[in-house]
Protein backbone atom coordinates (compact mmCIF):
# COMPACT_ATOMS: atom_id res chain seq x y z
CA UNK A 1 0.00 0.00 0.00
CA UNK A 2 1.26 3.46 -0.92
CA UNK A 3 0.96 5.73 2.13
CA UNK A 4 1.85 9.42 1.60
CA UNK A 5 4.62 10.56 4.01
CA UNK A 6 2.35 13.34 5.30
CA UNK A 7 -0.06 10.68 6.60
CA UNK A 8 2.75 9.02 8.55
CA UNK A 9 3.45 12.42 10.18
CA UNK A 10 -0.24 12.70 11.11
CA UNK A 11 -0.34 9.19 12.57
CA UNK A 12 2.76 9.88 14.68
CA UNK A 13 1.30 13.16 15.93
CA UNK A 14 -2.08 11.57 16.69
CA UNK A 15 -0.41 8.79 18.71
CA UNK A 16 1.68 11.37 20.60
CA UNK A 17 -1.42 13.43 21.43
CA UNK A 18 -3.28 10.32 22.57
CA UNK A 19 -0.28 9.25 24.67
CA UNK A 20 -0.38 12.56 26.54
CA UNK A 21 -4.09 12.04 27.25
CA UNK A 22 -3.55 8.45 28.40
CA UNK A 23 -0.69 9.50 30.70
CA UNK A 24 -2.86 12.26 32.18
CA UNK A 25 -5.72 9.81 32.70
CA UNK A 26 -3.51 7.22 34.44
CA UNK A 27 -2.07 9.95 36.67
CA UNK A 28 -5.56 11.21 37.50
CA UNK A 29 -6.81 7.75 38.50
CA UNK A 30 -3.73 6.97 40.63
CA UNK A 31 -3.84 10.39 42.29
CA UNK A 32 -7.47 9.93 43.31
CA UNK A 33 -8.62 12.83 41.09
CA UNK A 34 -11.38 10.65 39.61
CA UNK A 35 -12.62 9.06 42.83
CA UNK A 36 -16.41 8.74 42.76
CA UNK A 37 -17.25 11.67 45.01
CA UNK A 38 -18.70 15.12 44.47
CA UNK A 39 -16.34 16.75 46.99
CA UNK A 40 -14.16 18.31 44.26
CA UNK A 41 -17.05 20.55 43.23
CA UNK A 42 -16.46 22.73 46.30
CA UNK A 43 -12.88 23.79 45.46
CA UNK A 44 -14.19 26.84 43.58
CA UNK A 45 -15.30 28.28 46.92
CA UNK A 46 -11.79 28.17 48.41
CA UNK A 47 -11.20 31.79 47.33
CA UNK A 48 -14.68 32.73 48.47
CA UNK A 49 -16.10 36.20 48.29
CA UNK A 50 -19.51 37.81 48.12
CA UNK A 51 -21.47 36.43 45.17
CA UNK A 52 -22.93 39.03 42.85
Amino acid sequence: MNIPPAVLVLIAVALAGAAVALAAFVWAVRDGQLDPTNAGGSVIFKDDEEPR
Partner: protein
Amino acid sequence: VSTALGDQPDSLLPLRRQMDEQAALPVLLYFGTGILWLLAGTVLGVGASLKFNAPDWLGSIPALTFGRIRPAHLNAVMYGWGSLAGAGCLVWLTSRLCLVPVQWRACLIASVALWNAGMVYGVGSILLGYSTGVEWLEFPLAAVALIALAFLLYAASILRTFSLRKVDHVYVSLWYILASVVWFPLLYVVANLPIYSGVVHGVVNWWYAHNALAVWFTPVGLALAYYFIPKIIGRPIYSYYLSLLGFWTFALFYNWNGVHHLVGGPVPNWLQTISIIASVMMVIPVLTVAVNHHLTTVGNFGMLRTSLALRFIVFGAMSYTAVSFQGSMESLRSVQETLHFTHYTIGHAHLGVYAFLTMMLFGAMYYITPRVARWDWPRPGWISAHFWLTAAGILIYVGATCWGGFLQGRALNNAAKPFTDVVELTRPYLMLRTVSGVLIGAGHLIFAALFAQVLRRMGPPQEGIGTP
Protein backbone atom coordinates in the same frame (compact mmCIF):
# COMPACT_ATOMS: atom_id res chain seq x y z
CA VAL B 1 -15.01 43.75 57.30
CA SER B 2 -16.22 41.49 60.09
CA THR B 3 -19.18 39.23 59.41
CA ALA B 4 -21.42 37.00 61.46
CA LEU B 5 -19.12 34.12 60.57
CA GLY B 6 -16.07 35.82 62.09
CA ASP B 7 -13.03 36.58 60.00
CA GLN B 8 -13.01 33.21 58.24
CA PRO B 9 -14.64 34.29 54.94
CA ASP B 10 -12.17 37.11 54.52
CA SER B 11 -9.03 35.19 55.48
CA LEU B 12 -8.15 34.82 51.81
CA LEU B 13 -8.66 38.48 50.98
CA PRO B 14 -4.93 39.38 50.79
CA LEU B 15 -4.23 36.37 48.54
CA ARG B 16 -7.24 37.13 46.36
CA ARG B 17 -6.13 40.73 45.98
CA GLN B 18 -2.57 39.63 45.15
CA MET B 19 -3.88 37.16 42.53
CA ASP B 20 -6.01 39.85 40.88
CA GLU B 21 -3.18 42.40 40.95
CA GLN B 22 -0.74 39.97 39.32
CA ALA B 23 -3.30 39.03 36.69
CA ALA B 24 -4.45 42.60 35.96
CA LEU B 25 -1.99 43.77 33.30
CA PRO B 26 -1.91 40.66 31.09
CA VAL B 27 -5.65 40.02 31.46
CA LEU B 28 -6.60 43.61 30.56
CA LEU B 29 -4.22 43.52 27.58
CA TYR B 30 -5.78 40.29 26.32
CA PHE B 31 -9.29 41.73 26.86
CA GLY B 32 -8.58 45.17 25.38
CA THR B 33 -6.93 43.92 22.19
CA GLY B 34 -9.52 41.14 21.91
CA ILE B 35 -12.29 43.76 21.94
CA LEU B 36 -10.55 45.69 19.14
CA TRP B 37 -10.59 42.51 17.02
CA LEU B 38 -14.24 41.98 17.94
CA LEU B 39 -15.09 45.41 16.53
CA ALA B 40 -12.99 44.85 13.39
CA GLY B 41 -14.48 41.39 12.92
CA THR B 42 -18.02 42.73 13.34
CA VAL B 43 -17.51 45.38 10.64
CA LEU B 44 -16.08 42.72 8.30
CA GLY B 45 -18.96 40.34 9.08
CA VAL B 46 -21.73 42.88 8.56
CA GLY B 47 -19.96 44.02 5.38
CA ALA B 48 -19.83 40.45 4.06
CA SER B 49 -23.52 39.97 4.90
CA LEU B 50 -24.51 43.25 3.18
CA LYS B 51 -22.93 42.02 -0.03
CA PHE B 52 -25.67 39.37 -0.24
CA ASN B 53 -28.25 42.16 -0.25
CA ALA B 54 -26.28 44.54 -2.51
CA PRO B 55 -23.85 42.42 -4.55
CA ASP B 56 -22.19 45.37 -6.32
CA TRP B 57 -21.50 47.34 -3.15
CA LEU B 58 -17.70 47.92 -2.81
CA GLY B 59 -17.21 45.27 -5.48
CA SER B 60 -14.62 47.26 -7.43
CA ILE B 61 -12.07 47.48 -4.61
CA PRO B 62 -10.16 44.17 -4.56
CA ALA B 63 -9.40 44.26 -0.81
CA LEU B 64 -13.11 44.65 -0.01
CA THR B 65 -14.49 41.90 -2.23
CA PHE B 66 -16.49 39.08 -0.63
CA GLY B 67 -13.73 36.48 -1.14
CA ARG B 68 -11.42 38.52 1.06
CA ILE B 69 -13.60 40.09 3.75
CA ARG B 70 -15.40 36.83 4.62
CA PRO B 71 -12.18 34.97 5.58
CA ALA B 72 -10.87 38.20 7.17
CA HIS B 73 -14.06 38.21 9.33
CA LEU B 74 -13.59 34.57 10.37
CA ASN B 75 -9.93 35.01 11.28
CA ALA B 76 -10.48 38.33 13.10
CA VAL B 77 -13.24 36.95 15.32
CA MET B 78 -11.73 33.50 15.95
CA TYR B 79 -7.99 34.13 16.35
CA GLY B 80 -8.38 37.76 17.42
CA TRP B 81 -11.50 38.14 19.57
CA GLY B 82 -12.28 34.58 20.71
CA SER B 83 -8.69 33.52 21.31
CA LEU B 84 -7.39 36.70 22.96
CA ALA B 85 -10.43 37.23 25.20
CA GLY B 86 -10.49 33.49 25.97
CA ALA B 87 -6.79 33.41 26.87
CA GLY B 88 -7.29 36.39 29.19
CA CYS B 89 -10.17 34.66 30.99
CA LEU B 90 -8.26 31.40 31.39
CA VAL B 91 -5.14 33.14 32.75
CA TRP B 92 -7.29 34.63 35.52
CA LEU B 93 -9.25 31.41 36.10
CA THR B 94 -6.12 29.22 36.35
CA SER B 95 -4.77 31.52 39.05
CA ARG B 96 -8.05 31.36 41.00
CA LEU B 97 -8.37 27.57 40.72
CA CYS B 98 -4.74 26.95 41.77
CA LEU B 99 -4.76 29.70 44.45
CA VAL B 100 -1.43 30.92 43.04
CA PRO B 101 -0.79 34.35 41.51
CA VAL B 102 -0.22 34.31 37.74
CA GLN B 103 3.33 33.15 36.97
CA TRP B 104 5.69 34.32 34.21
CA ARG B 105 3.79 37.52 33.44
CA ALA B 106 6.52 38.63 31.00
CA CYS B 107 5.63 35.59 28.85
CA LEU B 108 2.00 36.68 28.79
CA ILE B 109 2.79 40.27 27.85
CA ALA B 110 5.10 39.06 25.06
CA SER B 111 2.31 36.67 24.05
CA VAL B 112 -0.21 39.51 23.64
CA ALA B 113 2.30 41.51 21.54
CA LEU B 114 3.21 38.59 19.25
CA TRP B 115 -0.41 37.46 18.95
CA ASN B 116 -1.56 40.88 17.80
CA ALA B 117 1.40 41.27 15.43
CA GLY B 118 0.48 37.91 13.89
CA MET B 119 -3.15 38.99 13.60
CA VAL B 120 -2.34 42.29 11.85
CA TYR B 121 0.02 40.46 9.47
CA GLY B 122 -2.46 37.63 8.84
CA VAL B 123 -5.66 39.66 8.36
CA GLY B 124 -3.71 42.22 6.31
CA SER B 125 -2.39 39.43 4.08
CA ILE B 126 -5.91 38.10 3.47
CA LEU B 127 -7.23 41.55 2.53
CA LEU B 128 -4.26 42.16 0.20
CA GLY B 129 -4.81 38.84 -1.55
CA TYR B 130 -2.14 36.66 0.06
CA SER B 131 -4.49 34.13 1.67
CA THR B 132 -3.54 30.44 1.44
CA GLY B 133 -7.12 29.75 0.35
CA VAL B 134 -7.55 26.95 2.92
CA GLU B 135 -10.56 27.65 5.16
CA TRP B 136 -9.62 28.41 8.81
CA LEU B 137 -5.93 28.21 7.76
CA GLU B 138 -5.85 31.28 5.50
CA PHE B 139 -2.93 32.99 7.28
CA PRO B 140 0.51 32.86 5.61
CA LEU B 141 3.22 30.95 7.50
CA ALA B 142 4.88 34.04 9.04
CA ALA B 143 1.60 35.02 10.76
CA VAL B 144 1.09 31.40 11.85
CA ALA B 145 4.59 31.33 13.37
CA LEU B 146 3.93 34.51 15.40
CA ILE B 147 0.60 33.22 16.72
CA ALA B 148 1.97 29.74 17.48
CA LEU B 149 4.81 31.30 19.49
CA ALA B 150 2.32 33.57 21.29
CA PHE B 151 0.17 30.56 22.21
CA LEU B 152 3.21 28.62 23.49
CA LEU B 153 4.20 31.53 25.74
CA TYR B 154 0.64 31.66 27.09
CA ALA B 155 0.67 27.87 27.60
CA ALA B 156 4.02 28.09 29.44
CA SER B 157 2.59 30.60 31.92
CA ILE B 158 -0.55 28.52 32.52
CA LEU B 159 1.47 25.32 33.08
CA ARG B 160 3.88 27.13 35.42
CA THR B 161 1.01 28.50 37.53
CA PHE B 162 -0.56 25.02 37.57
CA SER B 163 2.71 23.38 38.66
CA LEU B 164 2.81 25.60 41.79
CA ARG B 165 -0.86 24.95 42.71
CA LYS B 166 -1.91 25.07 46.36
CA VAL B 167 -5.08 23.04 45.75
CA ASP B 168 -4.85 19.24 45.63
CA HIS B 169 -7.93 18.67 43.53
CA VAL B 170 -7.77 19.53 39.82
CA TYR B 171 -11.17 21.15 39.21
CA VAL B 172 -13.03 20.16 36.03
CA SER B 173 -12.46 23.62 34.46
CA LEU B 174 -8.74 23.11 34.92
CA TRP B 175 -8.90 19.81 33.01
CA TYR B 176 -10.39 21.65 30.04
CA ILE B 177 -7.74 24.40 30.32
CA LEU B 178 -4.84 21.91 30.52
CA ALA B 179 -6.17 19.89 27.59
CA SER B 180 -6.41 23.05 25.47
CA VAL B 181 -2.91 24.34 26.24
CA VAL B 182 -1.35 20.96 25.41
CA TRP B 183 -3.41 20.02 22.36
CA PHE B 184 -4.12 23.29 20.56
CA PRO B 185 -0.48 24.28 19.82
CA LEU B 186 0.17 20.74 18.55
CA LEU B 187 -2.89 20.90 16.30
CA TYR B 188 -2.16 24.42 15.04
CA VAL B 189 1.45 23.69 14.12
CA VAL B 190 0.81 20.30 12.51
CA ALA B 191 -2.16 21.51 10.43
CA ASN B 192 -0.11 24.46 9.10
CA LEU B 193 2.85 22.32 7.96
CA PRO B 194 3.30 22.84 4.21
CA ILE B 195 3.46 19.10 3.47
CA TYR B 196 -0.09 18.17 2.47
CA SER B 197 -1.74 17.87 -0.93
CA GLY B 198 -4.87 16.48 -2.56
CA VAL B 199 -7.45 14.58 -0.53
CA VAL B 200 -5.11 14.39 2.49
CA HIS B 201 -5.00 18.19 2.54
CA GLY B 202 -8.80 18.33 2.59
CA VAL B 203 -8.97 15.88 5.48
CA VAL B 204 -6.27 17.77 7.43
CA ASN B 205 -8.12 21.02 6.71
CA TRP B 206 -11.34 19.83 8.40
CA TRP B 207 -9.56 17.78 11.03
CA TYR B 208 -8.01 21.12 11.99
CA ALA B 209 -11.07 23.34 11.64
CA HIS B 210 -13.31 21.16 13.76
CA ASN B 211 -10.58 20.52 16.33
CA ALA B 212 -9.93 24.24 16.68
CA LEU B 213 -13.42 24.14 18.24
CA ALA B 214 -12.81 20.83 20.05
CA VAL B 215 -9.50 21.55 21.73
CA TRP B 216 -9.55 25.34 22.01
CA PHE B 217 -12.81 27.29 21.70
CA THR B 218 -15.17 24.79 23.36
CA PRO B 219 -12.81 24.08 26.29
CA VAL B 220 -12.59 27.87 26.84
CA GLY B 221 -16.39 28.14 27.00
CA LEU B 222 -16.91 25.05 29.16
CA ALA B 223 -14.10 25.92 31.59
CA LEU B 224 -15.81 29.28 32.16
CA ALA B 225 -19.30 27.75 32.47
CA TYR B 226 -18.17 25.12 35.00
CA TYR B 227 -16.61 27.84 37.15
CA PHE B 228 -19.02 30.76 36.90
CA ILE B 229 -22.42 29.02 37.08
CA PRO B 230 -21.81 27.39 40.49
CA LYS B 231 -19.63 30.28 41.68
CA ILE B 232 -22.15 33.04 41.03
CA ILE B 233 -25.14 30.97 42.20
CA GLY B 234 -23.21 29.92 45.29
CA ARG B 235 -23.67 26.17 45.23
CA PRO B 236 -21.47 23.44 43.73
CA ILE B 237 -22.13 21.70 40.40
CA TYR B 238 -25.13 19.36 40.80
CA SER B 239 -23.17 16.17 40.07
CA TYR B 240 -19.51 17.01 40.07
CA TYR B 241 -18.53 13.40 39.42
CA LEU B 242 -20.61 13.42 36.23
CA SER B 243 -18.74 16.53 35.04
CA LEU B 244 -15.46 14.57 35.09
CA LEU B 245 -17.05 11.76 33.06
CA GLY B 246 -18.14 14.53 30.70
CA PHE B 247 -14.60 15.81 30.32
CA TRP B 248 -13.03 12.43 29.54
CA THR B 249 -15.73 11.39 27.06
CA PHE B 250 -15.39 14.84 25.47
CA ALA B 251 -11.63 14.24 25.13
CA LEU B 252 -12.26 10.79 23.66
CA PHE B 253 -14.96 11.58 21.06
CA TYR B 254 -14.67 15.20 19.93
CA ASN B 255 -11.35 14.96 18.05
CA TRP B 256 -12.83 12.44 15.55
CA ASN B 257 -15.55 14.81 14.32
CA GLY B 258 -13.77 16.81 11.61
CA VAL B 259 -14.46 14.64 8.56
CA HIS B 260 -18.24 15.14 8.95
CA HIS B 261 -17.60 18.39 7.04
CA LEU B 262 -16.62 16.26 4.02
CA VAL B 263 -19.55 13.82 3.99
CA GLY B 264 -20.34 13.05 0.36
CA GLY B 265 -16.89 14.23 -0.71
CA PRO B 266 -14.01 12.25 -2.27
CA VAL B 267 -12.88 10.89 1.10
CA PRO B 268 -12.86 7.17 2.03
CA ASN B 269 -16.33 6.17 3.21
CA TRP B 270 -15.09 4.51 6.40
CA LEU B 271 -13.44 7.79 7.42
CA GLN B 272 -16.73 9.66 6.96
CA THR B 273 -18.65 6.98 8.88
CA ILE B 274 -16.24 7.04 11.84
CA SER B 275 -16.64 10.81 11.97
CA ILE B 276 -20.45 10.59 11.93
CA ILE B 277 -20.40 7.97 14.72
CA ALA B 278 -18.10 10.15 16.83
CA SER B 279 -20.34 13.17 16.20
CA VAL B 280 -23.33 11.23 17.53
CA MET B 281 -21.28 9.92 20.49
CA MET B 282 -20.82 13.59 21.47
CA VAL B 283 -24.36 13.36 22.84
CA ILE B 284 -22.84 11.72 25.96
CA PRO B 285 -20.50 14.54 27.08
CA VAL B 286 -23.04 17.16 25.97
CA LEU B 287 -25.76 15.56 28.11
CA THR B 288 -23.46 15.55 31.15
CA VAL B 289 -22.86 19.28 30.67
CA ALA B 290 -26.50 20.12 29.95
CA VAL B 291 -27.89 18.11 32.90
CA ASN B 292 -25.31 19.50 35.28
CA HIS B 293 -25.66 23.13 34.33
CA HIS B 294 -29.42 22.98 34.28
CA LEU B 295 -29.76 21.22 37.64
CA THR B 296 -27.24 23.62 39.21
CA THR B 297 -29.18 26.65 37.96
CA VAL B 298 -32.72 25.33 38.53
CA GLY B 299 -34.46 27.13 41.38
CA ASN B 300 -32.12 30.09 40.95
CA PHE B 301 -33.32 31.47 37.64
CA GLY B 302 -34.37 34.61 39.54
CA MET B 303 -30.66 35.42 39.84
CA LEU B 304 -30.64 36.13 36.10
CA ARG B 305 -32.39 39.39 36.98
CA THR B 306 -29.74 40.49 39.47
CA SER B 307 -26.50 39.08 38.04
CA LEU B 308 -25.85 40.42 34.56
CA ALA B 309 -22.73 38.24 34.21
CA LEU B 310 -24.80 35.13 34.98
CA ARG B 311 -27.39 36.16 32.38
CA PHE B 312 -24.77 36.03 29.60
CA ILE B 313 -23.28 32.80 30.99
CA VAL B 314 -26.57 30.90 31.24
CA PHE B 315 -27.50 32.07 27.72
CA GLY B 316 -24.14 30.68 26.57
CA ALA B 317 -24.58 27.38 28.42
CA MET B 318 -28.07 26.84 26.94
CA SER B 319 -26.69 27.61 23.48
CA TYR B 320 -23.97 24.99 23.99
CA THR B 321 -26.60 22.30 24.47
CA ALA B 322 -28.57 23.53 21.46
CA VAL B 323 -25.61 23.80 19.10
CA SER B 324 -24.21 20.43 20.13
CA PHE B 325 -27.42 18.49 19.53
CA GLN B 326 -27.87 20.39 16.28
CA GLY B 327 -24.31 19.43 15.27
CA SER B 328 -24.81 15.74 16.04
CA MET B 329 -27.97 15.68 13.92
CA GLU B 330 -26.33 17.68 11.14
CA SER B 331 -23.54 15.12 10.74
CA LEU B 332 -26.01 12.42 9.58
CA ARG B 333 -25.90 11.67 5.84
CA SER B 334 -29.70 11.92 5.47
CA VAL B 335 -29.73 15.38 7.08
CA GLN B 336 -26.72 16.64 5.10
CA GLU B 337 -28.50 15.69 1.88
CA THR B 338 -30.68 18.74 2.50
CA LEU B 339 -28.56 21.07 4.63
CA HIS B 340 -25.01 20.79 3.28
CA PHE B 341 -23.82 23.86 1.29
CA THR B 342 -26.76 25.97 2.51
CA HIS B 343 -27.00 28.95 4.88
CA TYR B 344 -28.03 26.48 7.61
CA THR B 345 -24.34 25.70 8.22
CA ILE B 346 -23.63 29.40 8.78
CA GLY B 347 -26.46 29.53 11.33
CA HIS B 348 -25.01 26.50 13.13
CA ALA B 349 -21.52 28.06 13.20
CA HIS B 350 -22.84 31.28 14.74
CA LEU B 351 -24.95 29.43 17.30
CA GLY B 352 -21.67 27.84 18.39
CA VAL B 353 -19.08 30.58 18.31
CA TYR B 354 -21.45 33.46 19.06
CA ALA B 355 -24.45 32.32 21.12
CA PHE B 356 -22.27 29.87 23.08
CA LEU B 357 -18.64 31.07 23.11
CA THR B 358 -18.97 34.84 22.70
CA MET B 359 -21.86 35.23 25.17
CA MET B 360 -19.87 33.11 27.66
CA LEU B 361 -16.84 35.38 27.16
CA PHE B 362 -18.97 38.50 27.70
CA GLY B 363 -20.31 37.08 30.98
CA ALA B 364 -16.86 36.06 32.20
CA MET B 365 -15.38 39.44 31.25
CA TYR B 366 -18.16 41.28 33.09
CA TYR B 367 -17.20 39.29 36.19
CA ILE B 368 -13.39 39.40 35.85
CA THR B 369 -12.76 42.97 34.61
CA PRO B 370 -13.91 44.88 37.74
CA ARG B 371 -11.88 42.55 39.94
CA VAL B 372 -8.59 43.00 38.07
CA ALA B 373 -9.16 46.68 37.19
CA ARG B 374 -10.34 47.43 40.76
CA TRP B 375 -13.17 49.50 39.28
CA ASP B 376 -16.83 48.57 38.89
CA TRP B 377 -18.87 48.96 35.68
CA PRO B 378 -20.16 52.56 35.71
CA ARG B 379 -23.48 51.95 33.90
CA PRO B 380 -25.30 48.65 34.68
CA GLY B 381 -28.15 49.74 32.40
CA TRP B 382 -25.76 49.63 29.45
CA ILE B 383 -24.80 46.03 30.30
CA SER B 384 -28.46 45.07 30.16
CA ALA B 385 -28.80 46.84 26.78
CA HIS B 386 -25.72 44.97 25.56
CA PHE B 387 -27.32 41.68 26.60
CA TRP B 388 -30.68 42.29 24.90
CA LEU B 389 -29.16 43.64 21.67
CA THR B 390 -26.78 40.70 21.26
CA ALA B 391 -29.23 38.05 22.52
CA ALA B 392 -32.02 39.25 20.21
CA GLY B 393 -29.53 39.75 17.38
CA ILE B 394 -28.08 36.25 17.53
CA LEU B 395 -31.51 34.59 17.90
CA ILE B 396 -32.71 36.41 14.77
CA TYR B 397 -29.45 35.52 13.02
CA VAL B 398 -29.65 31.79 13.83
CA GLY B 399 -33.40 31.63 13.18
CA ALA B 400 -33.13 33.36 9.78
CA THR B 401 -30.11 31.42 8.49
CA CYS B 402 -31.30 28.01 9.75
CA TRP B 403 -34.87 28.33 8.47
CA GLY B 404 -33.80 30.06 5.26
CA GLY B 405 -31.06 27.46 4.79
CA PHE B 406 -33.52 24.60 5.29
CA LEU B 407 -35.85 26.04 2.61
CA GLN B 408 -32.82 26.66 0.38
CA GLY B 409 -31.68 23.04 0.78
CA ARG B 410 -35.14 21.68 -0.05
CA ALA B 411 -35.33 23.90 -3.13
CA LEU B 412 -31.82 22.95 -4.30
CA ASN B 413 -32.78 19.27 -4.17
CA ASN B 414 -35.72 19.98 -6.48
CA ALA B 415 -34.28 19.54 -9.99
CA ALA B 416 -37.30 21.27 -11.56
CA LYS B 417 -36.57 24.53 -9.72
CA PRO B 418 -34.34 27.04 -11.57
CA PHE B 419 -31.25 28.03 -9.56
CA THR B 420 -32.10 31.75 -9.70
CA ASP B 421 -35.42 30.98 -7.98
CA VAL B 422 -33.51 29.38 -5.11
CA VAL B 423 -31.34 32.49 -4.81
CA GLU B 424 -34.46 34.70 -4.80
CA LEU B 425 -35.99 32.52 -2.09
CA THR B 426 -33.10 33.20 0.33
CA ARG B 427 -33.16 37.00 -0.06
CA PRO B 428 -35.47 37.95 2.85
CA TYR B 429 -33.56 35.67 5.23
CA LEU B 430 -30.25 37.23 4.20
CA MET B 431 -31.71 40.70 4.77
CA LEU B 432 -32.78 39.60 8.27
CA ARG B 433 -29.23 38.39 8.85
CA THR B 434 -27.81 41.82 8.01
CA VAL B 435 -30.33 43.47 10.36
CA SER B 436 -29.35 41.09 13.15
CA GLY B 437 -25.68 41.86 12.46
CA VAL B 438 -26.37 45.57 12.99
CA LEU B 439 -28.11 44.83 16.34
CA ILE B 440 -25.16 42.69 17.43
CA GLY B 441 -22.72 45.39 16.31
CA ALA B 442 -24.58 48.01 18.38
CA GLY B 443 -24.21 45.71 21.41
CA HIS B 444 -20.48 45.43 20.75
CA LEU B 445 -20.08 49.22 20.63
CA ILE B 446 -21.76 49.49 24.04
CA PHE B 447 -19.47 46.76 25.42
CA ALA B 448 -16.34 48.45 24.05
CA ALA B 449 -17.47 51.82 25.47
CA LEU B 450 -18.09 50.26 28.91
CA PHE B 451 -14.68 48.60 28.89
CA ALA B 452 -13.01 51.92 28.01
CA GLN B 453 -14.95 53.61 30.83
CA VAL B 454 -13.61 51.11 33.37
CA LEU B 455 -10.04 51.57 32.12
CA ARG B 456 -10.47 55.35 32.36
CA ARG B 457 -12.06 54.94 35.82
CA MET B 458 -15.21 56.82 34.97
CA GLY B 459 -18.13 57.11 37.36
CA PRO B 460 -18.11 57.77 41.11
CA PRO B 461 -14.86 57.01 42.98
CA GLN B 462 -14.85 53.47 44.33
CA GLU B 463 -12.58 50.84 45.76
CA GLY B 464 -13.38 48.11 43.26
CA ILE B 465 -14.95 44.71 43.77
CA GLY B 466 -13.81 42.41 46.54
CA THR B 467 -12.25 45.17 48.60
CA PRO B 468 -13.58 45.92 52.09
